[in-house]
Structures are given as structure tokens and as C-alpha cells.
């Protein structure tokens, strides 16, 4: 798979060598990408193979006297090496002239320690072997079962997306090569209450192939129940409540409320409160948080988009903030080691500090134990969106459904939609129980602000905490 990159690897090395004649640092990241998405709904059947993000292409990074610069392109051949070198020189000269009077941010050139790596992930069933027909048939048959569950279900949307990619990173001292694939499935059901459409959703994901499709049918009953329960939902009386978060909601809190705040490019910009809390308690002692590629999920990779090898970063250790996640440029500016979190939406975009697989460690309780410990509160399920606030650690997360708990039991009453607000450390310090089973979900993408979408997974166990809901 992806043999094109084998053919041009010598030319990529030649490009880096040619650039190093003029620049103290030069590297190239080459990406070859195969992507396909299948979906079926009332809108019809759709198969799209037109590419994920930018698709296949190249990004060169150099350092000149001003600092870091990058050039993204998707036409390359051995013959184009001199031309690309000239384009970079010309564009840099033009830009530097236009920026006269603006000072550069001092940035040491990140170390380029020697590394040689060839890595790939395991999978059971390549979607290309399964074939478009079988995938559409399977999605269609699950959809029919979903619609047959209850006549009030007016729509069931089924989807599967698959990306296989190969990345080669070459610098003066590094030659890295990885081939990975992830596959995700989605199951959504809709019910109508007049003009208002309510929907319930479940995602499925893996680091691997179409074998994930086998999990989807198992979600039919719970998604249908949630959708139908939403028909009787009402707005929640605002207030602070004892809550049980399901693993997906825990994952959203891990990712949105805390994870973004310890992306260390935010430390460089003085945008993250987390910088002042290193080695301080930010959470209950029950909370230990990780980010990295030592688990197998959709965001697992061997090296990041700046050629830094990945690993496991312990962000919070028993309630104490130990470190953040860091890309190579930010690490150079802060004088710390990069953690393998320099990621790009595609070769067309800048690398930022980004999360990968981010999660809380499991504890020792069951969800039933948590529910039975609550006099009045809610079980929060199905997170729908969230937004970071690294500067002030404010929470904005939305979940679709809050199930009422009274005297240790679910009453059957549901509220929707729900906005979670408050101060992140207050929430994390209020954690009194952690579930014993950890789950990761990699169905979604993460943005930086409102753009730069990268594949991530997040999760944890179910979790009991005190949360402000509205």
C-alpha cells in the first residue's frame, strides 16, 4: 500500500539535502492518504472517496534568519527539487520584505536527534477487501432494524468512515515511516416533536479496519431508547447537581474542559492558566489523566507531524498537574522536551499542540454504585459539543440528555439539552467516585478554536462529580 512514497523517498532526501545547503534546519513530511466514507439515510446512499482534509501532499519546514517557515504543496518529482528550493527562497524573501518592522519570536531550532523508524498498525479487515457493496448492505440492514424498533423513529442514519495513511518524515538526522488506519461508524436516530427534531447518537471507532462495523448493531436498543425518551424531555431547572457522567461525557470533560488547557503552545502565548498550576492539585486524588499513543485508538501514531516520536504523557497524577502536551516549536521556546503532540489537520496546515488519545484512568466503582449514592441529581449522557477556555478554565460542554436520579434511583424523567458550565478545577476536585471500566471513543474530530480538525479519541470511566447544569 502507498508505494508512491517508496518511489520518491530518494527525491525527498535530496530535497532536504538541497535545502540544508541554505538553511540550518530543513525537513519534509510526506503524506499519502486513502479515505472513504459510506452513509445511508433518508437523504440516500452515499459513497465518497475524495479525500480526508488535504489528502496526499508534502510540507517542508525550514529555519532561516527570521525563524520557522513552511511550504505546503502537492506536486513533487525529483526534477522539481531545484524549483521548490527556489520557490521557498523567493516566497521567504517577499514575505520578510513585506513584514519589515515586525520582530520575530525568538525560537531555538528544535534538536534533530537521530531516529530511524518503520511502523504500521494491525487490522483484521481492510474495508477495501470487504468491498463497497458489502459495507452498504450491512449499513442498510442495520438501518432497517433501527427503523423497525418503533414507529416513532422517523429516521436512522448509518455511516462508516475509513482512513488509511502513510507518513514519511525526513530531516537531516531522522527517517521515519508509518502506515496506520482507523475506521469509525456512527448510528443516529431521530424523532419528531412538532417542528422540533430530537436525535440520539452513538459512535464506534478503532485503530484498524472494518471489523468495527460488527459493534454497531449492539447500539440499536440504547440509541432508540434515548431518542424516544427525548420526546418527553424538558429544559432543566438551572443549578448545581450531583452528577454521574457516562464514559463519553467523562471523555468530553477530559478533552474539552481540561485537555485543551494543557496544550503547551498555549503556555507560550500566556493563554493557559495550567502553566501556573504545575505540581499543584487541580483535581481530586481519584483523577489521573493520560495522553498518548500507548493505547490503540483512532488517534494512535508512532510519530507526530513534526517528526517527534510519541509515547504516554501523564498529565495529572492523582490530582496533581504534572505537565502538559507539547509540540516541537513550543518545546524549544519553553525549554522542555516535546511530547509528540505536534499535529496538523493535513499537510496543508500548520502544526499545533494537539491531543491524541486522552483519558482518565479507571477507579473502583460501578455506575450503579454511583447512582445509588445520589439523593438528587442526574446521569449525563451523549455529549454533543464542547469548547475550550484554557485562559480561565471555564467549562462549556453540552450533553443531549440528563436522566433524573432521586433517592439513589433513576426516575425515568429526562431533561434536554443540557449546558455544563463552571470552573474546571472545581468540577475535577468534586470527583468522588471513578468507574472501574475505562472506555475510549474516537468517533469525532477536534478543532483548535474553530478550525484545524484532527482525529482524536477521549474517554475514561463513568465518574461522579458536582456540576453546574443549565
Amino acid at each position: 500500500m502507498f508505494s508512491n512514497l517508496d518511489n520518491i523517498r530518494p527525491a525527498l532526501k535530496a530535497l532536504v539535502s538541497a535545502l540544508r545547503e541554505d538553511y540550518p534546519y530543513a525537513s519534509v513530511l510526506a503524506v499519502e492518504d486513502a479515505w472513504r466514507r459510506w452513509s445511508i439515510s433518508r437523504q440516500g446512499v452515499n459513497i465518497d472517496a475524495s479525500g480526508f482534509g488535504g489528502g496526499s501532499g508534502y510540507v517542508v519546514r525550514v529555519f532561516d534568519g527570521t525563524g520557522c517557515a513552511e511550504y505546503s504543496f502537492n506536486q513533487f518529482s525529483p526534477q522539481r527539487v531545484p524549483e521548490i528550493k527556489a520557490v521557498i527562497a523567493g516566497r521567504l524573501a517577499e514575505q520578510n520584505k513585506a513584514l519589515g518592522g515586525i520582530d520575530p519570536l525568538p525560537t531555538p531550532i528544535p534538536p534533530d536527534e537521530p531516529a530511524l523508524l518503520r511502523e504500521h498498525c494491525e487490522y483484521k479487515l481492510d474495508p477495501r477487501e470487504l468491498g463497497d457493496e458489502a459495507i452498504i448492505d450491512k449499513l442498510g440492514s442495520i438501518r432497517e432494524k433501527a427503523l423497525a424498533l418503533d414507529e416513532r423513529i422517523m429516521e436512522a442514519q448509518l455511516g462508516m468512515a475509513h482512513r488509511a495513511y502513510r507518513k514519511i518524515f525526513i530531516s537531516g538526522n531522522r527517517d521515519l515511516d508509518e502506515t496506520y488506519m482507523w475506521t469509525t461508524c456512527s448510528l443516529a436516530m431521530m424523532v419528531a416533536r412538532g417542528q422540533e427534531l430530537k436525535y440520539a447518537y452513538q459512535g464506534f471507532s478503532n485503530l484498524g479496519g472494518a471489523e468495527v462495523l460488527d459493534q454497531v448493531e449492539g447500539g440499536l436498543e440504547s440509541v432508540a431508547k434515548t431518542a424516544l425518551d427525548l420526546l418527553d424531555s424538558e429544559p432543566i431547572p438551572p443549578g448545581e447537581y450531583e452528577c454521574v457522567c457516562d464514559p463519553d461525557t467523562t471523555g468530553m470533560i477530559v478533552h474539552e474542559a481540561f485537555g485543551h488547557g494543557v496544550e503547551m503552545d498555549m503556555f507560550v502565548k500566556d493563554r493557559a492558566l495550567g502553566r501556573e498550576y504545575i505540581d499543584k492539585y487541580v483535581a481530586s486524588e481519584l483523577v489521573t489523566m493520560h495522553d498518548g499513543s500507548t493505547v490503540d485508538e483512532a488517534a494512535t501514531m508512532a510519530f507526530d507531524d513534526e517528526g517527534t516520536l510519541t509515547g504516554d504523557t501523564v498529565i495529572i497524577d492523582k490530582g496533581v498537574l504534572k505537565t502538559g502536551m507539547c509540540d516541537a516549536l513550543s518545546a524549544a521556546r519553553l525549554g522542555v522536551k516535546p511530547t509528540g503532540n505536534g499535529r496538523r489537520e493535513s499537510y496543508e496546515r500548520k502544526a499545533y499542540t494537539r491531543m491524541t488519545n486522552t483519558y482518565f484512568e479507571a477507579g473502583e466503582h460501578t455506575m450503579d454504585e454511583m447512582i445509588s449514592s445520589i439523593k438528587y441529581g442526574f446521569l449525563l449522557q451523549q455529549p454533543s459539543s464542547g469548547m475550550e477556555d484554557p485562559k480561565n478554565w471555564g467549562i462549556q460542554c453540552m450533553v443531549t440528555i440528563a436522566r433524573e436520579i432521586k433517592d439513589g434511583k433513576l426516575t425515568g424523567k429526562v431533561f434536554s439539552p443540557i449546558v455544563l458550565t463552571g470552573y474546571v478545577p472545581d468540577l475535577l476536585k468534586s470527583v468522588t467516585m471513578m468507574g472501574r471500566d475505562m472506555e475510549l471513543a474516537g468517533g469525532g474530530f477536534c478543532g483548535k478554536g474553530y478550525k484545524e480538525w484532527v482525529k482524536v479519541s477521549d474517554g475514561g470511566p463513568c465518574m461522579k462529580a458536582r456540576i453546574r447544569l443549565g
Partner: protein
Amino acid sequence: MIDRIKSALSDCGIGLWRINDNTEESAELFFVKKQLDTRRFKDVRKFRVTVFRDVEKEGKALRGFTSVTLLESMSGEQLREELKNAYYAAQFAANPTYELPDPVQSPTIETAGELFEAPLAESAGRMAKALFSADNQSDAFINSAEVFVIRCRRHILSSEGTDVSYTDGKVTGEFVAQCREPEDVEIHNIFTYDMLDTESLIKKVREALSFVRDRARAKRILKSGKYDVVLSGDQAATVLSYYMSRSAAHMIYPGYSTWKAGDAVQGENISGETLDIDLCATEPCSEEGIFMSDLPLIRKGELLAIHGNNRFCRYLGIEPTGQYRMLKCLNGMTPFEELKAGPCLWAVTFSDFQMDAMSGHFGGEIRLAYLIDGDSVTPVTGGSINGSILEAQGNLQFSLERYDSANYSGPYAVRINGVNAAGTEG
């Protein structure tokens, strides 16, 4: 390359197709405070080829399509392989048949203006300098910023005879405004212009710096309850986007929206302003090769038109309009000062304000709002609002003052009564 693709299509026996040849170049600048972080440049060209395949199933005529991206570096064999795979897949993506867009031809439509004439690096430098020209106070300042200057050349061809090309471009980016005292806070801002609009950017920076000063002294004192809420700028645009979404053919054909032309989509009992909304063409033609023009959408609360891409419009038996990205609201009869007079909560910035077109719910966490009661104006932060356009749409009031962005032109503010807020206390 176009000839190579056409030849490969012919070799594969593919008779129905569309080619979207998109070339994009950019200059991108990234700043921390006023210092240059990174410079980036981009030159990419992609050929998105959509192949259509007619099949018959149980006596019914069906048409499927699949799209694939081709690159100039691909060999003839690779082009044929990609197209063959796409054509094979298209038979399994078969839906009720429909006519492809009518063929259109046009000489290249060149967009005029500095953005298209000056070197990209020079334009990026000008926008960056404009951004920082308004950053001249010590208490509130730009923490970090990104500027993207992008130019595109688009060429659309189809087996039906369409051959259209045009240029477009934009200046887009974001900046974070910060104020350290009395509380260290920030507000995230995004901008998009279709020209080198340095004046609008300077105005936006000034306004953002003013807001962030207020956020720094804002108190977490919002009490839970119902408020008359004033939403302004991008939030007003987001609320109105509900009407654009619900009137789209891809929402109506599957029954997600039950709207049809002639419906009183704002409801029957309207005590506020009746809506007048247009959709605006922001490019000469859609990616399917449909020439686009401005479309009157709603007048006096009544839906005039359905809009959308070719397939869903054909299914609904209406002329395809292409997919719109810009909404223009013609309402606005109350001066802003009057609109926010009387007890209300003017919510200025949110962490992420959202409108769910399926449910009609809108809301978000408040970064800065003003509690206004007569002459008393108190900046507040924290808490959230959670409203329903279905409940609120009968009593909307709009400001006389206007607000323009790349996707919206309309009143600067809308007042919505009786919106639930979750406070930071009580």
C-alpha cells in the same frame, strides 16, 4: 491534466462526470503578541472528479455517484485505477435518478481588486500591520493572531458540456484579545473578508479590545432565570441561520424539515418584526456548475423559496439554485440603544454559541454580557443561555444598525424575550 483525466474517463467507459479543478495559493502569518511566530505558504492543485453511474433495480431507474481526488503527479495507470474504483463504487450509491445540472459555459470570470492583484505576501503583511495598528494600549492587547490570505482559481467541467471558470479569494484569520487587570481574561475573535478590508479589521480589533476590558471587570453574578436577551454580531447571524438551514432542499427532501413555499415559517402569532430574508450568491456558480444569484427567501415571515444542490432540488421538482453560504436579513427598525433599553441581558461573546437547526435550540456559555436595567449597566461573565427559536420567533426585534461579515449582512442585534439563563449563583 484535464485532457489526461478526460482520456482516462473515456478509457474506463465513464460517460457521465464532472471535474472540479481547484488551484489554491496562500500566504499565512502566525503571531505571538506582536512577534512573528511562523510564516507559511501553500501551492496546491486538486482535481475532484465525480463519476455518475446509472443502474436499474427492481424496475426502477437509479443514479449513483462517487467522487475521487486526482493529482497531477499520478500516472495514467493510477488515474484509470482511481476512476475505475470510483465508478465501481457508484453503482452501490444508487439513488432515485435525476437530471444532471443544465450545461453552462462562460469565459473565466476574474474577480478584480487588490486581493487578486497584489503579491500574496504583500497582502498578508498589510493585513497583519492593520491588525496591530489598533493594538496600541497597554491594558488590553492582542495576545496572538493568525492571518491567511488565500486566492483560488476554480474550473468546472462536465460531460454535459459545462465549462466555467472563475477566481475567488479571501482574507481570514483570528486573534485573541487579552486584558490582564483586574482579572486576566481573553476573548477569541475570527474574521473573514472577501477583499483586503483593513478598515473592517481595525474596527473589529478596537471593538474586541473594548469588550475584553469589560470582561476583565465583569462579575460572576448572573442569577438563573428568564431574561430578555439581546444577541449581537455573529450571534445574531447564527440565530437567523436556522431559517437558511430549514429551507434547504437537503433538509426538506428527507422530511427533516416540513417547510414548503408559502408556509408561515415564523409561526402564526407574531408580535415582533416579521422576517424578511434573502440568500446571497458569494461566487459566480456552485461547485456543481449552477450559476448563482441572490434569492429572496422569506418575506413577512412567509417562505418564498427552497434552495439547494442539484439532486435534492430535482427531487423536489424545483430549479436547482446551488448551495448558499450567505444570509442577508432586511429587518431592523429599532435603534440599538432603544433595543437594549429596559431590563435585558446583552450577551456579547460566548465560548461557542450554537444554533441546532434540527431542534431549534440555541445557546452557549457567556464570556461577556451586560446586565442592563435603566441607566445601570453591569458587565457579567459565566453562566449560559439556552433558548428555542420555535418559542421565541414570534417576538423578535432587530436593530437599525447593520453588521456585515463574509456570511451575513443584516441587523447588528436581535432582541429575544424570555430566554432561560443558567447563572453562576442561585
